[in-house]
C-alpha cells in the first residue's frame, strides 16, 4: 500500500519544504533589510578615544600584532616645546639631555631636536614605538597632553573583535568610520557614527 500513497506523500512533503524554504529566504531578507537600515557603505575601524584613555600600557601587550598597531602620535599644535619634557624625560632626571638613562621611552622612539632657545621639537619614530603610553602619561601629567595614543590604520588588521578593546579598563575603544578614522586631540570631532565598544547602555 505505501507505493500507492507515495506520490501524494511526496507532494505534501515537498510542498511543506518549499514553503519553509521561502519562509527562510524571506526571514533572511528581513534580517538583511533591517540591518541595511543601520548600515554604512564603508568599513568601520577601531580607534582610541584619547580623552578616555588612562595609559594603562595594555595596548602594548594585547594587540594581535607585535609591535602593537597602537602608536603614540603628537599634536604639535598643542605642544609647549619645553626643554624639560614630561613625555621625554625620566621623572627626576637631573640632566636634560638625550642620554638613554634620561629618557622615559623604553625603545628610544622619541627624537628630540633643537629648534631655537629654549624650544625643542619632539618627534615620534613610529617604527620604534610600541604603544606603551609611558610618554603619554608623562605628557598628560606634567605637560599639555599633546602626546596621545591612536591606532595606526596602515598597520591595524581590523579584527572584528579587537583584543585590546576587550581588555581596555577604561572602555576607551570605539568604532569609527574608515574614511575618518582618527580621534586627534585638539581637533574638532565630527564623527556622530562613532560607537562605544560596550554599546548604548
Amino acid at each position, binding site marked *: 500500500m*505505501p507505493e500507492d500513497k507515495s506520490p501524494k506523500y511526496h507532494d505534501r512533503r515537498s510542498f511543506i519544504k518549499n514553503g519553509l*524554504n521561502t519562509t*527562510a*529566504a524571506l526571514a*533572511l531578507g528581513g534580517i*538583511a533589510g*533591517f*540591518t*541595511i537600515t*543601520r*548600515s*554604512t*557603505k*564603508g568599513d*568601520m575601524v577601531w580607534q582610541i578615544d584619547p580623552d*578616555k584613555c*588612562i595609559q*594603562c600600557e595594555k595596548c602594548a601587550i594585547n594587540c*594581535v*600584532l607585535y609591535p602593537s598597531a597602537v602608536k603614540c602620535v603628537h599634536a*604639535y*599644535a*598643542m605642544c*609647549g616645546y*619645553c626643554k*624639560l619634557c614630561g613625555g621625554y624625560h625620566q621623572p627626576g632626571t637631573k640632566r636634560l639631555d638625550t642620554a638613554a638613562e634620561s629618557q622615559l621611552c623604553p625603545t628610544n622612539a622619541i627624537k628630540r631636536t633643537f*629648534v*631655537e632657545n*629654549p*624650544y625643542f621639537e619632539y618627534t615620534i619614530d613610529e617604527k620604534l614605538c610600541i604603544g606603551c603610553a609611558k610618554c603619554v602619561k608623562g605628557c*598628560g*601629567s*606634567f605637560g*599639555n*597632553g599633546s602626546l596621545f595614543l591612536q591606532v*595606526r*590604520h*596602515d598597520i*591595524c588588521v581590523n*579584527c*572584528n*573583535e579587537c583584543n585590546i578593546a*576587550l581588555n581596555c*579598563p*577604561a*572602555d576607551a575603544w570605539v*568604532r569609527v*568610520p*574608515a*574614511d575618518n*578614522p*582618527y580621534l586627534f586631540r585638539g581637533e574638532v570631532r565630527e564623527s556622530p*557614527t562613532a*560607537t*562605544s*565598544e*560596550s*554599546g*548604548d*547602555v
Partner: protein
Amino acid sequence: MKKNILFILLIFIFITESYPQIQRFPKPDFESGYTQPGPVKTYPRSVSWEYVDVAVLLIALFLSSYFALKKRSRKYIFSLMIFSLIYFGFFRKGCVCAIGSIQNISLAFFDKTYVVPLVVIAFFTLPLIFALFFGRTFCAGVCPLGAIQDLVILKPQKQSNRLNHVLGLIPYLYLGLAVLFAATGAEFLICRYDPFIGFFRFGFNQNMFIFSTAVLLLGVFIARPYCRFLCPYGVLLKWASVLSKRHVTITPDECIQCHLCADSCPFDAINTPTPERYPGEPDKGKRQLILLLLLLPLMIVTGGWAFSKLSVPLSRNHYIVKVAEQIRLEDTGQTTITTEFSEAFRGTGMPTAELYNRAALVQSRFKTGSWILGAFLAVVIMSKLINLTLWRRRLDYEPDKGACLSCGRCFKYCPKEHERLLELKGVSLLE
C-alpha cells in the same frame, strides 16, 4: 633652571589630577622661521577592497556550488578551497568572516548606535542564500576555517552515532551564547575563541596557540571538529541546507544500493537505507513522540528558568557590570584593593548611581536573553529527540542534508559516477 622648578612644582600640583584639559605651557612664538609639522594620518586600505572581497565571495560561492552539483569534481572543489584558504585566510587575515558576522548582525539589531558595514551584511547573508538553494557549498570550498581543517584530515575515525548527536548540540549552545553576548554588547565570543585566526596572522598568545594546535591535531582523527561540533554559523547553514532546493547527491543518477559509499564520508553525513519493517510490527516511536510533545512545554519553561539563574554570572562579561560590581565592593568596604577598571571609572567623574542604573539595565537584558537562550536550547534538544523517534523510510544511500558539507569526497565511490565519467570520455559500456 626656572622651568625645572616649575616642573617640580607641577608634579606636586597635578600628580593627583587625571588628564589636563588646559594648556599648561603656552605655544611658543618661534622666531627662527620654524614651521610646525601637521598631524600625520595613515588610512586603512580603501573601501573598494571591501567590494572586491564581496565579489570574490560571490564568485567562490557560485563556483563551489557549480563544482559540487553540476561538475561533480572533488578536485575542483579542493582547488577552490585552497584558493579560499589563501585569499580569505592568509591574505585577508580572516576578518570579517561569515561566522563572526552573526555577532555584528545581532548587535545591529539590539544596539541603535552600532553601525554595521554593508560588507558584513553581505558576508552574513550570501552563504545562507546559497545554502537555501544548493546546500552547504560554503563549507566545502569557501570557508577558510573549514579549509584549514580539511587539509589535516589524514586518519578520520568513525564516531558512534550517539556521540555525534550529543556533540552536535554544542554549536547551538555556542550560537545562543554568542548572540546573547553580542546582543547585550558584552563581547564577540566567536571572535575571541576563533581557533585559526592565529594561523592566518602568524601570531598567537600562548593559550590560544595550545587551543588552536589541539583543534588541528584533533582534526587529523576527527574530521573538521570545529565545523561539526562548534561552528555557530554551521547551525544556520544546517537549517538552510535542510530546506535547500537542490543538494549534492552521491550518485549522478540513481542509487543501486551497492553500499560502496557507506564509509566514504569522514563527517558521518551519509544516511543509509532503513531496514525493512514488517506490517504489524509494534511502533514504539509513536508513544515516545506523544510523550516528548507533552514534555516540550515543560522543558521550555525549565530550560528558560535554569538559564535565567545563570544570567548574573554571564552578565559579568559586560564591561559596565564588571565595573559596577568592583565599585560596589569598594564602596561597601568589602575590598580595599582598587583595580584599573574602578580607577578608570572614578576618573570619568560619572556618578556611581548612574553606573548602577546602567549595570541594572544590562543585567535585566541578560536576564531576558538567558530566558530565551534556555528556552531555545530546550527546543533544540527536544526537537533532536523528536527527530530521533520519527521513522522515515529511506531506500537509498543519500547525504544527510543538514550535516553534508558538499565536499564531494563520496563521488568517486559510486560506480554510477565512474560510468558517467567514462561516458563523458566517450566510452560506451555496452560495447
